[in-house]
Each structure stands twice: as structure tokens, then as C-alpha cells.
């Protein structure tokens, strides 16, 4: 995948199955957001494919949202903009995301953490098969993060949807995720949270944060040349939803 002539992402293979939480981690500039935008169809891949089950509904929760102050828009009304929905469904989605009390507030007045949940409610209204959450932990404090991730975990059970999560902080996510994909322009390593935490490449990327010192060697799916580029790896760039 190229952007402005630069290779942003190379040889990425990602699958999300129904009911599964997959987390993308990686340092800034690793291409996490680019990969998510490719899954959402917001950017085109230079090569490779994004395969989606026909009729797959994606619920997208962006990192942030700024609504111009001149637009008089309540939270309730904001949720109703994206598809024809009944007022009851809007209230139910707000309740499910835990922000029913905000329905009548101007959308510009809600706090960062509240906005995250309003955006989650918005994503739920589309009855998604796949929830895509871009750094949902960014605008929220530690307590709010735990609350939010607990909620997401509940949702994937009640709705049976797959979840693709982008995060830069593995600690809050680890316990809640089924698989982790560590990105740094290519897939550094992937597997269960435990596997990834022990992986040498993960440790070199997040050295200061890795709290487990036991070195564990697990199978490596690609080799690295001296300059760090992948010389042998997966045979296609594709994402499945």
C-alpha cells in the first residue's frame, strides 16, 4: 500500500471472524490507521485485495469527530443522520452505549469520553457485522478505557460481531482481545496477546513497556534482511472481514 509514493504498508494479511476481537498495535506511523482505512474502503490498496463477505455491514467508530459549532445538532439527531431509523432505535442504541442521558444535548457539548460512547451508539445503529474502532482509548482516562473495553466485549457477545480495534496501548487491550497484530509498516508479529508480548520484535518496539522478561521464541512467519525489510513472507495483501 502506497500513499504519496511512500510504501506505508507491505504484505499485510488480516482476518477478522465473527465474534472475534482483533487488535492492531504498533508505533506511530506504523500504518495502523491506513490499514483500517483500507478495510473501510476509504483508501485504495496499490496491490492486494480487501475481501468482504457480501452484504457485510461495517460499524465505524472514528478516533474523533468535530462538528462545526454553527450547526445546531443534538446527540439524538446526530445518530439519526446516517440512515432512516426510528426514534426508539436511537434511544435504545444510546442506552446500550450507556449515554441515554445525553440524547438532548448539543453534540458539540459532550466530553471526549462521552463522545466516544455516542460514536459507539452510532456504529451500533447500523446493526454491524464488523465493528471497526480507531484508537477508542485515546480521549478517555484509564477508568474510562476499562469501562469502554468491557462494553465492547459485551457487545461482541450480544451482537455476535467481529471487532477490529486499533490501539497504541497494549495493556488495557490485552485481556480483552483474542488476537493481536503488531504492525510496523509490515506485520511484525501476530498471535494471541501472550505470544505477541513475548515476541522479540514486539519487545524491541515496546521495550520499556514489556513487563515479562522471559524470552520466548515462537515461530516467525517471515525473515528480515539487514535493513529491516521483509524478504519473505505472506503471499498476498488481503484483509477479510
Amino acid at each position, binding site marked *: 500500500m502506497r500513499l504519496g509514493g511512500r510504501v506505508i504498508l507491505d504484505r499485510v494479511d488480516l482476518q477478522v471472524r465473527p465474534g472475534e476481537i482483533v487488535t492492531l498495535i504498533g508505533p506511530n506511523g506504523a500504518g495502523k490507521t491506513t490499514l483500517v482505512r483500507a478495510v*473501510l*474502503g*476509504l483508501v485504495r490498496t496499490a496491490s492486494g485485495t480487501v475481501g468482504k463477505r457480501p452484504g457485510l455491514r*461495517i460499524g*465505524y467508530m*472514528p478516533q474523533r*469527530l468535530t*462538528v*462545526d459549532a*454553527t*450547526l*445546531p*445538532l*443534538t446527540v439524538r*439527531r*446526530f445518530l*439519526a*443522520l*446516517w*440512515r*432512516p431509523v426510528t426514534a426508539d432505535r436511537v434511544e435504545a442504541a444510546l442506552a446500550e452505549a450507556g449515554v441515554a442521558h445525553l440524547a438532548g444535548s448539543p453534540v458539540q457539548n459532550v466530553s471526549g469520553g462521552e463522545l466516544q460512547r455516542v460514536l459507539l451508539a*452510532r456504529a451500533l445503529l*447500523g446493526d454491524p457485522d464488523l465493528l471497526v474502532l480507531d484508537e477508542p482509548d485515546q480521549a478517555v482516562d484509564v477508568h474510562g478505557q476499562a469501562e469502554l473495553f468491557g462494553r465492547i466485549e459485551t457487545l461482541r457477545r450480544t451482537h455476535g460481531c467481529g471487532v477490529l480495534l486499533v490501539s497504541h496501548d497494549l495493556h488495557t487491550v490485552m485481556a480483552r482481545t483474542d488476537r493481536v497484530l503488531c504492525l510496523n509498516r509490515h506485520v511484525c508479529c501476530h498471535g494471541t496477546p501472550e505470544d505477541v508480548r513475548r515476541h522479540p520484535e514486539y519487545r524491541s518496539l515496546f521495550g520499556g513497556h514489556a513487563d515479562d522478561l522471559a524470552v520466548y521464541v515462537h515461530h516467525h512467519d517471515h525473515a528480515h534482511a539487514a535493513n529491516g525489510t521483509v524478504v519473505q513472507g505472506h503471499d498476498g495483501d488481503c484483509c477479510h472481514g
Partner: protein
Amino acid sequence: MDDFVLRALAAGCGIALMAGPLGSFVVWRRMAYFGDTLAHSALLGVALGFLLGVNPLVGVVGVCVALALALVGLQRHRALASDTVLGILSHSSLSLGLVAIAFLETLRVDLISYLFGDILSVTPADLAWIYGGGAVALGGLVLLWRRLLAVTVDEDLARVEGMPVEALRLAFMLLIALVIAAAMKIVGILLITSLLIIPAAAARRFSRTPEMMAGLASVFGMAAVLGGLYASLTWDLPGGPSVVVAAAALFLASAVVPVRS
């Protein structure tokens, strides 16, 4: 009341009616400068209309659409900031229009009336254009209302939900072009944008929903037309500028009126 006064009132109120909702969108989408650019290009449309022997209003809509398409293309490159692109297009198209009219030797155009409007010389044919164009513009806006609001709030979200964002953006520009073509004769191309944005800005503080703001903007616009026309007839002032001054006075008044929150 004389016929010409009635026609002026009807024309002004018709323009204000469609300028309210469209102007609200211009404010929400931060496109005031874009509206100005389109309006400035209208003079070129008038010249082309005469040159090709078609109704100048058709020329205006044609040039506005061409400019809107050029803008979408130029903004995609992002080599220049969009206000720079708008500034280039705005002033070069206005100058091109002035130059083109100077070349048309056979044509005797009252330039001042195109630049600043001549609301007291509205003909029945003009009225038909205003109400016909207004009906099309408002009908289109009602049809696209929810999706245009969604695109205004966040283009990425709208795109993920499967909305045709580019087509919606273009449709909105077309609606603006229609209003400009219809309003040109009333307030003039240099003052059209003010009729779009001043009533909408005045309506913001009193509105709780987008629809309320759009409706109030129409009402404020009509009040400005009434006030401006009255002043124009009473003190023999130029019509278009008087209407804009009345709108500005309304805006100032709206800013100091207390609102319960």
C-alpha cells in the same frame, strides 16, 4: 403600491426564502468564500450567455458548474491551500467577466446593476426565473437534506455508510449556482453571498435544530428585504446594498438579544 415595488418585494422574498436553508449549509460547511467565488464567476456567465445567444441565466449556471468542477479537481491535488485556489479563481473569473463584457462592443450592459443589483427593475420574467429556480433548488435540498447534513458532519463516516459523498458535494454546489443565477439581478454578484450567510448567522443563536435555523434564516432574510426596500424607497438609496445593510443590522441585533439556554 406600484407594480415595480410589488415585483421587487416578491423577488426579494423569493430569494430570501431559498437563501435561508442554502445559506445555513454554506455556514455549516464553512463555504462562504466558495459562495463568493461562484458569485464572482457569474459575470463571465452573463458575457458567455450573450456571446452564445442564450439566456444569460443559463450562462451563469453553466459557468458556476464548470467552476465548481474545476474546484473539486484542484482541491484534490492539495498542492495549494483551498483559500488560495479560491482567491485565484474568484478574482480571475470576475476580471475575465469584466474583460469579456468590454470586448462585446455591440452589447450595452449596465455593469453596476450586475455588480450591485437592481431590485427595482425586476420584470415578470425575472420573477418566473426566481420562483422556478427557487422551487427546483428547495425541492432538491429537501430530497438531499439528511444526507447533506451527514456529509457536512463527517465525510468519512458518510462514505463508510455508503453515501455518494462526491455526488452530494457536487449537487450542493449546483444548488448554490442556481441561487446565484436567480439572485444576481436582485442584489448583484458582489453582494449575493451576504444574503446567503448573514441571515443564517443571525438565526444560529435562536435555533435548536438545523431545520429551525434554515427556516429562521429565511424569515430574517425576508425581513431584511422588507426593511431594505423600505429604506431604498424612502430615502432613494440603492436597493441591493440597502437590503444587505438591513440584514447586517438584523445580525447585530440578534447578537445582543438575550437567549434562554
